[in-house]
């Protein structure tokens, strides 16, 4: 029903505003319905201002900026309606180190309400998790999981730089 949609939209918008502030310190972001009178058919536009930049055209933003704006929208939906679990496959691949840290801090902050499974090659991300599973194939064509203890630096090194691929 359209009341429920409007109500949820408003909550997500408030969350988006807050989360945007954390991911883009000094910037501001908000969501807008293209047609307030017909919410269920209306488009959802994203309006953002990045620190120091005049432009707000989404297309002109960089690869990393776009990925971070998408993550801000994702986390704002997770805030309003937390799913039991959330699987993220290399979502931080385009981010620089500062932004990866902002992303992992957000993950930690949300991990109380939502369980996260994060597929990654990024060492920073690997340091921000509770448990690590390694997947290996060793030229056999068959995937095999190996549970890795966080303290086991050598094992993690072997995984991220395993000769056997």
């Amino acid at each position, binding site marked *: 029903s359209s009341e429920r949609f409007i109500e*949820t939209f408003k909550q*997500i918008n408030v969350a988006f505003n807050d989360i945007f502030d954390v991911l883009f310190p000094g910037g501001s972001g908000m969501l807008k319905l293209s047609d307030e009178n017909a919410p269920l058919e209306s488009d959802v536009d*994203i309006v953002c201002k990045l620190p120091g930049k005049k432009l707000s055209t989404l297309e002109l933003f960089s690869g990393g900026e776009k990925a971070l704006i998408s993550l801000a929208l994702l986390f704002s939906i997770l805030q309003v309606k937390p*799913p039991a679990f959330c699987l993220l*496959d290399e979502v931080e691949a385009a981010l620089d180190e500062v932004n990866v840290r902002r992303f992992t801090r957000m993950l930690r902050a949300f991990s109380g309400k939502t369980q*996260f499974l994060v597929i990654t090659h990024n060492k920073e991300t690997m340091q921000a*998790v*509770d448990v690590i599973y390694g997947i290996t194939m060793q030229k056999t064509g068959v995937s095999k999981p190996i549970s890795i203890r966080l303290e086991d630096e050598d094992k993690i090194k072997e995984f991220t730089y395993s000769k056997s691929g």
Partner: protein
Amino acid sequence: MYLKSLELMGFKSFGRKTVFDFQPGVTAIIGPNGSGKSNICDAIRWVLGEQSAKALRGTKMSEVIFAGSAELRPAAFSQVKLILDNEDRAMPLDYSEVSIGRQLFRSGESNYIVNNNRTLLNSIKEMLMDTGIGKDGYSVIGQGDIDDIIFQRTQSRRALIEEAA
């Protein structure tokens, strides 16, 4: 509610029966290119009802069945089981654990199974209705999909918010 374990058998590169036990909090899945990490993401989408082979990076659905390798013969069928912890009764069923399964045989026969009883996809969808878990929602973000969240046609942005409403 959280994802307690995931069982794969004959699904894509998981030629042997493989069981992942997960904890609440944040779990990283790491490993070399091509080792099978994104296949786990495909397995979760598939068991939650994904109908499009293309969304699982294939051309026909039978390609999810393990095709064989240097050391193992092709599988006769593919099976994935998702076991959700339901202690908090987030799902309206009187079980402390709910297992959702899907099978596909080379013959084309396909089954959905909940707690060892055959069932229909629609009743799985009903069961998961208010949990935020689903193949199309925001609980599974595939490799390369993060940019699509803000750049998709804006209707799908609306669909994401509707899903949360």
